């Protein structure tokens, strides 16, 4: 029987080591790779085709939720387990909308994490009872109330959201172009479009917008 392939994505060395130790403890599970940023997580998922991706919500370069969206699109067989510091109704909703079917807090136990990976390995979701409640309640109401994060999602394309995050992290249009492998002119054009769509008039305003709408953390 083939080993369960797990890809670990977190920007902290110590956390990656800990997650690796946890996975490697189980016979039949193996860590097929590690990623230190959201972008690397997506690239390695496409390259290595893991069964499960464990990813932190707060990742540099491309946050965990956006990375999840891309992974679910590019590698539908890969189940995503999101780990997060923050437990909130909003976060739970975001995680589900991004396509992750596993959600665990960093303060949850090793056993919870292992159970989450186990469930996902059988393509079963692993959500706490509270998250399930939120999910059911929102569906019962006929959809959630529009919230700020939706505003970003609805107005910007996936590419524009990527660029928004990079700009909000302090990268210049030139650096953005370099990271994404696009021409500087294209990067500039995207920036202009983003600012027009969001009705902001300076990069400082753009950064404030990004923080308010949880594209980056302050």
């Amino acid at each position, binding site marked *: 029987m083939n080993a369960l392939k797990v890809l670990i994505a977190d920007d*902290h060395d*110590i*956390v*990656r*080591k*800990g*997650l690796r130790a946890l996975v490697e403890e189980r016979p039949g599970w193996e860590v097929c790779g590690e990623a230190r940023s959201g972008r690397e997580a997506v690239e390695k998922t496409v390259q290595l085709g893991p069964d499960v991706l464990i990813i932190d919500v707060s990742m540099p370069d491309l946050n965990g939720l956006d990375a999840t969206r891309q992974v679910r699109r590019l590698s539908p067989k890969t189940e995503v387990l999101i780990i997060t510091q923050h437990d909130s109704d909003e976060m739970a909703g975001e995680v589900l909308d991004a396509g992750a079917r596993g959600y665990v807090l*960093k303060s949850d*136990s090793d056993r919870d994490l292992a159970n989450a990976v186990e469930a996902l390995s059988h393509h079963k979701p692993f959500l706490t009872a509270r998250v399930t409640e939120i999910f059911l309640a929102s569906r019962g109401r006929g959809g959630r109330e529009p919230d700020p994060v939706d505003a970003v999602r609805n107005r910007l394309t996936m590419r524009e959201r990527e660029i928004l995050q990079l700009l909000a992290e302090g990268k210049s249009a030139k650096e953005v172009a370099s990271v994404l492998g696009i021409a500087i002119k294209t990067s500039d054009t995207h920036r202009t479009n983003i600012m027009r769509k969001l009705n902001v008039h300076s990069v400082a305003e753009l950064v404030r917008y990004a923080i308010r709408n949880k594209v980056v953390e302050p």
Partner: protein
Amino acid sequence: MDPETRARIILSDDHSFVRRGLRNILESTDQYEICGEASDGSQTLELAKRLHPDILIIDISMPSPNGLEVARQLHESLPEIKVLILTMHDSAEMLRAAAAAGAFGYLLKSDDERSLVDALQHLKMGQHFVSPAFEPDLAKQLFH
């Protein structure tokens, strides 16, 4: 401390995989023995009093009481325990607060494995260690 002796360490963080990662890194050298783990402040204080470790690695954001308060209390009651703060907080203010609380070292969770090993080596030899992310002058000023 004699370089041949293994330093005894207590790990204190409410994230179990951080503790596990630390254990993994430190136990792979032959220099350290993890003698206990705790996931909140009062458990940490109780273990520290019982086990008298050489070093305590503790997160600031710990439940009841937080890491700074634990450092303060240990500095008063068991000052020979060297406290290494391991935290996400990268501000000078927090560094100052840790120094004022009697912490012996300060490391960021975003620091790499090598910095962790470096930090522990320093503490084992009785030297302060502050994350390379901070201005060296500030670090020297606060931890001398």
